[in-house]
Structures are given as structure tokens and as C-alpha cells.
């Protein structure tokens, strides 16, 4: 059965045994995933977290000349504001479902929204993002898609997120990518492969994307980048590419997977190009798959020398670092910390699934006792962990940095910070230097009361993480 036949892909829990709550060592994590079935965990208490709708909006908003309609009560589209602030997103609107709409059905409202936005903005594509309300009342989106597609003569792409079927928000990426390929890629079968390669980039900083694109250009490769900042025509080009190169082994994986399964485009296995050796490994994987081994090695040697020189002997020796990022990002940054001479005291990653297993195994062999905390948005657990570990430095994705800073731990936020490639290394080191040098604000924060009771800090950090009992 074609992988694109269904409205949406399988949720990450089913597709890749993803778990969203866990605390243990790398070796225990490997053991957990070594059986056939991974026992799902739940939190008996959890702070607010992201859902798949929010993650899907992130992808819809990155497509150029697009309009996104969130078919939901007005609150569900609030996440759009955050994405709009993060960069030039698309136009978005909410159908603002009210009580009557949820009872009587709102396909009329949806039709009106799509039509008027089309006339106002003349986009290349309109996205319709579902929401928990329409998932429950089964409001009819598909007939609006079919009718208006013909009537307005433009692609209308429904993204069937539910907001509750999956507990791991990254399912939202998969669902959006599924819809993009299903509706925009066209039906070409795998013909003769062209010269282009696909650069698969999901929710990356524009500077990160440019850095990766620069590296590919230096290797003499012509490429098309999807979905970040893509044009709808780029998806049709992507299905005829020679190969897909992911900028991350996790977030865009579903896109690479479908391109391979349905269109025969090989997916190159490569680590995230973060750090000097990390970027070198990425280049090596690309070079080896595309017959550019020598060029890749030469490029790496040159940039490595330049970067090391610019680092001017900076070292994290003696510093234990705590990392809090998406899994693939965290694993990549771990290597960078080691490269800079530091040690990693522990990781918080947003979810863990089978995609991470090869890297996890390798990590468990080197560092079997390294602690891994799986959590998306659980600042209370992270604060307790970091407080007990008391690292010399914390590097996170911005969400919890304020809480951690109040523990008087020097903290670096990667939000809005390019980290990819050789340029990313020098940029990050600059930030780390500053965090370690200018401590007085952090120390001042450390003297303010934390929002958590001592009683919570005395509890075991996985107090609220339990195995799900059937």
C-alpha cells in the first residue's frame, strides 16, 4: 500500500517506538530499545508541553508564498504568533470555530476562509491545519479541499494533526511532511535521476541552512532545499533528485523516508553537521555517497584548520556541560563539547525513538553511565536534575534557560543561534566564552528564590515518570 494513501502517517510512537518520558543511563536506554516492544511511559504530573499541531504549523509557515488556515477555535492558532516572531512565516488565519460551528459543522466557514484568503493574497498553496476539535467532531475538511482545488485552481493541502493522538510533538513534523509530499510532489515515477540533490531541512535557522548550502556548493553540488523556505515547485524537483541529504537525522527523516519509498530517491545517512568533526562526518557521508570523497576530505581539512585557528586554543577542559535540546541536536553537540575538551554531565532530549538507536548504542559503549532525561517542556524535572548535577555550563534551546540560570549555572541559549557547520562552532564558542566569563548576573539570579519547593528537589527526579499500565 502506498505510504501516502492515508490522511496522515502513523504516529511516532507506533512508527518508531518514540517515548516522551524517561530518566536513566545510556546503557539502560539501549536495553529498553533492544526488545520488540518499548514500554510507553507517562507522567503523572507534567508541565505544559508542545503538541503536533504546533510543530506542523512550523513547517507550514516556512513554505514561501503560502497561506495557512488553522481550522480550530482561535486559541489553537496562537502558536502561529511564536513562529511569526521567529522569522518571516507565511500568512496565517484561524477559522475561529465557535460553539455553533462545532455542533453544526464548519466546512462552510472553511470554504469561505480559503476562498477569501486566496483572493486577497493569491498564494501558491493554501494549507488547512486540523485541530483537536475537528479531529473529535470529524468535521469535513476533505470536500473543501476537493472542491476548492478545482474551483480556485491551486493546491490545497490538508494537514491532519489531532493534537492528542500522539504524545510526542515531533509527529507534527511527520504529518506536515506527509501532506506536503502527498499533495505537492506530483505523481512522477522514479525516472532517470537528475543532477540535483535534496537538502532536507526542517525548522532550521536560516543561517544554519545557508551554511549547509554553502558547503554543498563548495563541493560543486546543485541542490534544492525542502521544506524550509521552499517553493511548492521544489517538491516536484525533489522527487527526481539523485539523493537526499538530511540536515538532521531526525526531524526531516519522514520526508527522506517517503522520497525513498515512493520515488526511489536514496536517503544518505549522515549525522548532524555540528562541531568540527561532526561537520566533517556529514561531509564525508555526502562525499562517499555522491563520489566526492576527495573533495569532501579536502574541504574538511581546510575548514578544520581555519576553525581551529579562530578558536585560538579555547578549551572546555574541566567543565562539565549539561545539554537540553532535541535528541539529534543534543547528540551532535555532545561531540562538539568533547571536541572542545569538555565533558557532558547529562542530557535532556525532547523524545527518544529508534532513529537515535545507532548513535545511542555507540554512546553507551563509550559512556555507559551518561544520564539521559527524556522530556519536552518539563522545566521542573530539568531544574531538579541540573541542581543535583551542578554542571559548569548549561546549553539549551532557550525554553528553560531562565529557570536554569536561576540555579546560578552559566547558561547558553541556542535559540536564534546558528550552530551548524564550521561557522557554527566559532559562533557557539563565542557565546560559551561570554557565559563563562560574565557571571555576575547569573550569580544575582542565583540569589532569587526558585519557583520550586525544596520538597520537590528532595524527591527523585523521575518521581512522576511511570510505566504505562494497560
Amino acid at each position: 500500500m502506498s505510504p501516502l494513501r492515508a490522511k496522515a502517517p502513523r504516529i511516532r510512537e507506533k512508527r518508531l517506538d518514540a517515548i516522551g518520558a524517561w530518566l536513566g543511563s545510556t546503557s539502560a536506554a539501549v536495553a529498553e530499545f533492544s526488545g520488540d516492544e518499548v514500554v510507553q511511559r507517562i507522567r503523572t504530573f507534567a508541565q505544559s508541553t508542545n503538541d503536533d499541531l504546533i510543530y506542523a504549523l512550523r513547517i507550514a509557515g516556512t513554505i514561501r508564498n503560502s497561506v495557512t488556515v488553522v481550522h480550530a477555535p482561535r486559541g489553537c492558532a496562537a502558536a502561529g504568533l511564536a513562529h511569526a516572531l521567529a522569522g518571516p512565516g507565511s500568512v496565517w488565519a484561524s477559522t475561529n470555530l465557535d460553539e455553533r460551528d462545532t455542533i453544526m459543522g464548519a466546512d462552510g466557514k472553511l470554504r469561505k476562509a480559503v476562498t477569501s484568503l486566496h483572493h486577497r493574497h493569491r498564494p501558491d498553496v493554501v494549507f488547512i491545519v486540523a485541530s483537536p476539535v475537528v479531529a473529535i467532531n470529524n468535521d469535513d475538511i476533505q470536500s473543501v479541499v476537493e472542491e476548492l482545488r478545482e474551483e480556485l485552481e491551486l493546491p490545497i493541502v490538508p494537514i491532519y494533526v489531532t493534537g492528542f493522538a500522539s504524545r510526542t510533538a515531533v509527529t507534527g513534523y511527520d504529518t506536515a511532511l506527509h501532506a506536503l509530499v502527498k499533495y505537492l510532489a506530483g505523481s512522477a515515477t522514479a525516472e532517470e535521476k537528475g543532477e540535483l540533490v535534496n537538502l532536507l531541512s526542517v525548522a532550521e535557522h536560516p543561517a544554519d541552512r545557508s551554511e549547509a548550502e554553502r558547503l554543498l556548493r563548495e563541493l560543486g553540488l546543485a541542490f534544492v532545499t525542502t521544506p524550509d523556505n521552499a517553493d511548492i515547485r521544489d517538491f516536484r524537483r525533489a522527487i527526481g533528485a539523485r539523493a537526499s541529504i538530511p540536515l538532521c537525522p531526525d526531524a526531516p527523516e519522514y520526508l527522506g523516508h517517503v522520497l525513498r519509498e515512493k520515488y526511489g530517491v536514496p536517503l544518505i545517512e549522515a549525522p548532524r553537521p555540528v562541531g568540527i568533526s561532526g561537520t566533517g562526518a556529514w561531509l564525508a557521508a555526502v562525499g562517499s555517497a555522491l563520489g566526492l570523497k576527495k573533495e569532501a576530505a579536502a574541504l574538511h581539512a581546510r575548514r578544520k584548520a581555519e576553525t581551529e585557528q579562530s578558536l585560538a586554543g579555547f578549551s572546555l577542559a574541566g567543565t562539565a556541560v549539561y545539554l537540553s535540546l532535541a535528541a539529534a541536536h543534543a547528540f551532535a553537540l555532545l561531540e562538539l563539547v568533547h571536541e572542545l575538551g569538555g565533558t557532558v554531565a547529562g542530557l535532556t532530549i525532547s523524545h527518544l525513538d529508534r532513529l537515535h538507536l545507532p548513535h545511542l548504542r555507540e554512546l553507551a559503549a563509550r559512556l555507559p553511565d551518561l544520564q539521559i532525561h527524556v522530556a519536552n517542556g518539563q522545566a521542573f524535572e530539568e531544574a531538579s536534575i541540573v541542581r543535583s548535577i551542578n554542571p559548569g555550563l548549561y546549553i539549551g534551546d532557550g525554553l528553560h534557560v531562565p529557570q536554569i540560570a536561576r540555579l546560578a549555572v552559566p547558561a547558553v541559549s541556542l535559540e536564534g543561534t546558528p550552530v551548524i557547520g564550521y561557522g557554527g562552532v566559532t559562533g557557539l564558542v563565542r557565546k560559551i566564552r561570554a557565559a563563562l566569563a560574565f557571571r555576575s548576573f547569573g550569580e544575582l539570579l542565583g540569589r532569587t528564590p526558585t519557583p520550586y519547593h525544596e520538597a520537590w528537589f528532595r524527591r527523585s527526579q523521575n518521581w512522576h515518570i511511570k510505566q504505562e499500565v494497560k
Partner: protein
Amino acid sequence: MSERTSKHIAIYGKGGIGKSTTTSNISAALADAGYRVIQIGCDPKSDSTTILRGGNDLPTVLDTLRENSKVRIEDISAVGFGGVLCIEAGGPVPGVGCAGRGINAAVELLQDLKLFDEYKPDFVLYDVLGDVVCGGFAVPIRDGIADRAFVVTSSDFMAVFAANNLFKAINKYAPSGGARLGGVIANSILAPYATSLIDDFSAKTGTRVVGYVPRSLTVAQSELYGQTVIEAAPTSEQAQVYRRLAQFISENEDTVIPRPLNGPELKKWAREWGDRIFEVEAGVVHEMAAI
């Protein structure tokens, strides 16, 4: 569009009209004729396949609803009479939750299990509860799940009214890939005017009756024994009725998009039939009266 060779058929009709009985007997008849059949009960009461399984317990699909449990087909199905694979979608207990959402989730779960790829049925019958009161209960006729739908009705006005409503739902979804109408199954035929009434309603709405199932003690008795008529009384006339109906469904793939009557039309139609029945009672005979 469909890469499947199996035929997916949804059976709808007013609650209590004999849908599950009819569907189970059709499944049994198809199985008896040598086909591989799956019957999926889409009713939170979970009683669609009871008479195929001799009343034994069957865990419902939604009982197993978890993100990551490795559910196997054997966990949520039972082999009934004639080899019919019986599945119940299940749902919340009365008065709570959302059964419509449950039907959606159950159907998705079955697809997720690759039930149809693995079992390779010739026929899949979805027995869907009576009053399609929300979007969830229309799921079997949406999104390319069922190819055809049949509507069961008796000559009682309430059943016809429900059938007309079901035609509205089919009418809505058929143009965007939903199931089309295979026809009407006339059930519980007893009074002399019943077949004419149902024929007339079908003609007025652009469809036709594909089978007439008389009201019969055999059905009632078989059901009390927890069996289909095909099992309990295989050589009876009633069994033959179901076999003919099953044969028609298996051999005939014509479908239409029905034209439901609007409020005033339905009211007028009902009044006219009320008058005709009165005349039957009063012994009035019209020339050319086909009653």
C-alpha cells in the same frame, strides 16, 4: 485509487430495524458461498456480530487503544460461523465520551494493523449504528473506506425517515470520494403494502430495493438461539432470502448517488401513503392499484 481487491460495504439503517441481524445473515451467507468475510460492528453497543459468534465475549478494538501496544489481529477478533472474522469497534459506556470519535479511531486502528492486507478478505461489511448523529458515524462512508453503502429500512415511517437522512449523508460525501448507494434492503416485510411503500420511496429517491426480507419467526428463533438463520435453519425459505440477497450484493456493483426528499416532500409523500393504507383497510380497490 484503490489497490484493494476486497469489497468494502457499509450497512446503515434506523436503530432496531434489523441491521445487525441482516448484516450477520448476509455475512454468513457469503461465507457459506465460499467467500472470505470480515464483519466489523461500528456500534458502541458492540452487539453486531453476536449471532455469528454464539454470544461469546469479544474484546473490542477500542479496548486495546494505546499508543504503543503491539496489538495483534487475534486480540480483537473472533472467527464466527462459516469462518466469518468478527470484529467489534466498541466505544465508551453510555452517556460519556464520544462514540463518533471512537469509530474513527477504531477504523484507523484496523488499517494500522494492516488487517485487510494480511487477512485478504473478499468482503468487508461495516455494520454501522442507526442514527448517524455526528461526523464520526459517517467515517465508514468517507475517506474511501467503504465502496458501497446499503440502507436497511422497514415500511414504518420512522425507518424511512432515517433512511432519507442517511441518503443526505451519502449525498454529501459521495462526490469527494465517499461511498455511493448500492440500494435499499427492505426488512421486516409483513403488511401487504410494505413492499410497495418501500419500492415507491426508493424510486422517488433515485435508487431501488435490492432485497425483500420478510418478517419471520425463523429469524426471531435463530436469534434467541444466538445464531444466524444460515446456521440455525440452513434449508429454510428465510435462509434462501438471505442467500439471494448476498448473491445480489456479491455480483452486482451498480451504485447511485441518492436524491433525498426534503422536509415538505417527505411529509407529502408520507401523507399520500397514509391515505393509500387507509383505503386498503377500508377495502377500497382502485383500478391499477399495485397493492
